[in-house]
């Protein structure tokens, strides 16, 4: 092995470097200048994100434990973009006095989860995968409990760590069965020996359940709403977008590489789970008044839609999943960005009824939220329309017309509750609407990036073409 081979791990090494730099800044800056950590970190991370797009070598490391290809790099870049937007959006909130002492913690914890996700995506065997998965989830519990003096926040942290530990346990059990029956943990070796004996199928189901926890598929979604509601808004947005995106990526890779032999089995399972996830997520979202819980259930139903791309295991399917996650990052972060800005400015107003008459006082934020919600609902001309359309095309390509019909009917239900928020902002009248407030430059920049992404990604066909050219299937 040569030293240059470590370049394959460029993303991971850069992120590790960033963690070290933020740590050094934290140690050597005196208290008055702590706030300067924010622009520096954002600037550095923006540089890291851009470097990620430079052409990079592909190949495997450590005898196949670590692998990287164009698709892996694309996935990591997408996660980087998501994390960058979260960093920018969180800047104003981190400036609050209550967060003054723990600015760098926020960055370090998020960066470490990002390292975990990158290793997880690039993993070539189940050990590396599990390692990455744990690194990606444990710091999130700390992040969820970030509001030290809020009961709800600590509750969210505890709930997350418990459910995460349980799901990891279940998954590990499954992985041990895979090792027991195939004698290997390497993806390619397991894939070639795996025949689908009953024990192996059981192992798959345990693995599936573990992943379902991370992606919050129904019926493994119960932690989602509570954790999303309790955690600070910016953590929730990270959790709902980047964390979920990473899990979906590796899930679709493992399904088509390791479990290709039992494809009909997992396609049936995903068929049912996807319908459940979409429908139940949607039905619960209708009843919510807290906007974070609302977005939590909306993100559950979005997970159901993403599964539409996974189910076929085709090239088009994987491309549409990756593309949709990219679009989803901009849409959901656009929505959460507005929620975070309002929550920070008003000291925690997070109910949909608080948004009554928002358009009169804050038209810019209202339009941003409207565009983001339209994108989540799949309304043109914003990017969500294209994302959903490709997912639907991918599922129809495999002939699942019944599933397609259920899915499109679910988009109508989702449109209903997204419109409820739009209605609150534009149509409902309120005696005490949220007063006009000015956001700082970071928040504006964060939202502007989201809007630009929403408008551009759909019409710029080369993005989808590029993702399609990298993707692979069964």
């Amino acid at each position, binding site marked *: 092995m040569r030293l240059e081979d470590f370049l394959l791990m460029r993303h991971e090494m850069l992120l590790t470097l960033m963690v070290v730099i933020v740590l050094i800044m934290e140690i050597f800056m005196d208290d008055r200048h702590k706030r300067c950590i924010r622009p520096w970190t954002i600037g550095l991370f923006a540089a890291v994100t851009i470097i990620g797009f430079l052409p990079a070598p592909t190949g495997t490391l450590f005898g196949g434990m670590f692998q990287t290809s164009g698709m892996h790099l694309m996935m990591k870049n997408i996660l980087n973009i998501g994390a960058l937007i979260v960093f920018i959006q969180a800047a104003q909130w981190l400036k609050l006095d209550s967060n003054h002492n723990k600015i760098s913690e926020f960055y370090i914890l998020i960066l470490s989860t990002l390292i975990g996700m990158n290793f997880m995506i690039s993993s070539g065997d189940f050990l590396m995968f599990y390692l990455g998965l744990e690194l990606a989830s444990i710091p999130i519990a700390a992040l969820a409990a970030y509001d030290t003096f809020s009961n709800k926040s600590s509750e969210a942290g505890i709930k997350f760590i418990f459910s995460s530990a349980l799901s990891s346990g279940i998954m590990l059990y499954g992985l041990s069965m895979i090792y027991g029956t195939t004698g290997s943990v390497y993806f390619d070796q397991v894939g070639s020996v795996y025949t689908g004996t009953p024990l192996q199928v059981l192992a798959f189901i345990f693995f599936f359940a573990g992943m379902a926890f991370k992606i919050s598929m129904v019926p493994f979604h119960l932690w989602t709403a509570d954790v999303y509601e309790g955690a600070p808004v910016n953590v929730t947005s990270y959790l709902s977008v980047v964390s979920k995106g990473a899990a979906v990526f590796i899930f679709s890779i493992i399904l088509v590489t390791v479990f290709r032999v039992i494809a009909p089995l997992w396609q049936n399972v995903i068929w049912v789970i996807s319908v459940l996830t979409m429908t139940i997520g949607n039905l619960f979202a209708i009843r919510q008044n807290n906007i974070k819980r609302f977005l939590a259930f909306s993100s559950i139903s979005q997970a159901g839609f993403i599964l539409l791309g996974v189910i076929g295991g085709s090239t*088009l399917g994987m*491309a549409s999943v990756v593309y949709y996650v990219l679009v989803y990052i901009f849409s959901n972060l656009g929505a959460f960005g507005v929620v975070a800005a309002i929550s920070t400015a008003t000291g925690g107003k997070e109910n949909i009824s608080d948004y009554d008459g928002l358009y009169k006082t804050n038209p810019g934020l209202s339009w941003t939220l409207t565009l983001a919600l*339209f994108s989540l609902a799949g*309304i*043109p*001309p914003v990017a969500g*329309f294209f994302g959903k*359309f*490709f997912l*639907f*095309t991918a599922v*129809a*390509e495999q002939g699942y*017309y019944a599933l*397609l*019909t259920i899915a*499109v*009917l679910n*988009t*109508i239900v989702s*449109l*209903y509750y997204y*419109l409820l928020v*739009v*209605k609150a902002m*534009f*149509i409902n009248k309120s005696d005490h609407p949220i007063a006009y407030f000015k956001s700082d430059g970071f928040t504006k920049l964060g939202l502007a990036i989201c809007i630009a992404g929403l408008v551009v990604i759909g019409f710029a*066909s080369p993005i*989808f*073409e590029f993702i*399609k050219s990298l993707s692979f299937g069964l």
Partner: protein
Amino acid sequence: MDYLTYFIIVPLLTVFGIVLCKNDKQVKWTAVIGMSIQLILAAALVFMYLAERKAGNMAEFLFYHDYMWYPALNIRYTIGVDGISVAMVALTSVIIFTGIFASWEVTNLHKEFFISLILLATGVFGFFICVDLFTMFLFYELAVIPMYLLIGIWGTGPKEYSAMKLTLMLMGGSALLLVGLIGLYFNSAPGGGALTFNLIEISKVQIPMEAQRFLFPMTFVGFGILGALFPLHTWSPDGHSSAPTAVSMLHAGVLLKLGRYGAFRVAMFLMPEAAHELGWIFLILTTISVVYGAFGAIQQKDLKYINAYSSVSHCGLVLFALLMMNKTAMDGAIMQMVSHGIMTALFFALIGMIYGRTHTRIIDEMGGLMRVIPFLGVAYVIAGLASLGLPGFSGFVAEMTIFVGSWQHVDTFHRVATIIACSSIVITAVYILRVIGILLLGPVRFDWYNQLTDARWYEKLSVGFLIVCIAGIGIAPLWLSNMIGDSLVPVVEKLNMISFIR
């Protein structure tokens, strides 16, 4: 830049201009300028189209341009028009132009109102010029969403309920449509080769029958919901009556037609076998629409509801004629689309103006308006007479052609359907004349009515322009029916080829 794309660019530039405007006056005039350019473009398009045809260009779609958009899925931005879409584009530009003047007195949030209105029109224009199913669908959805805000914010009555009901039902239609379109895409190359969303290319292949049986109802019902097909028409009366004037005009005038146009262009043109096999179900439904809508209109007391139900009835006639699947009836159907579009826009414009003066739309609470606002009164009578099919107006030409065409079928089923549908003409006369009698004639109901002012210049402009169009088509229908007729030939041939094989 090709000519047709201007129909999308001009409205978008207008929207951009409105964003930059500083006060209400600028907003209105920007909208007027933009939509006037659009109207001139449309008029020029009609002349250019007729000139091309005269010069012997027999291509199915003229001004055809094809740009690759998503090579991976063979999604293209393909535009082109035939006589039917030219007629629809012209109709849309007339109605949006007059709609701007009809909404001169919008009270709050002017900017947002005109932006949403013109975005809605952009979607409609885009839909009519596209030949690619994906882009068509994109523009269709683009046309539906601004409606929610337009009705929800500027509407009257139970506006929130109506807006939500309308949006969800139309999106439900588009959901079915989406399944249909994706299904068509994957069946567009049964013999192998590149899959395509291109309408013309799909029309050349034979889609497998099993697929058609599933896809035809999907697309037909999907577009049918937008075209207020019984029993999925319930959004239409609520939506129309709650919407602000210009939106009612555009909606009843153009969007209902958009549904019909889609049902014809996508469902029937691409899947003729299924249209023959399953057409009878929809023929029954449309016959019910025609009669039910007319009876519904008799029952109502609110002017807008009356007109909404009459739209259900008249538009039912369009679909009824299309499903007759012969050239004469289809000719009449397209004529009816244009004629009813202008007529109903005139009606809704007048109702909006009357409501703005009397502050009620319940006919029993008004009376004697002819004496106090004669211009609007006369215009209302003209609209009414055109609507019940008086010779000399566009409605007569269209309905006459429809029934002549549908009578050509000799079997009992079609005969009975035709006779039932014909009865709607009488019922139409009942509700139109009843309204005119109560509303316009008789003594002036309240003293303060004498202080009402007659139409202002912008109202006269809007109403006068529409009346000229109605009378123009009524007196000289031939150029329009020729333009439509030429383009119907390939469709009718395709539909009839099937029945000969059987």
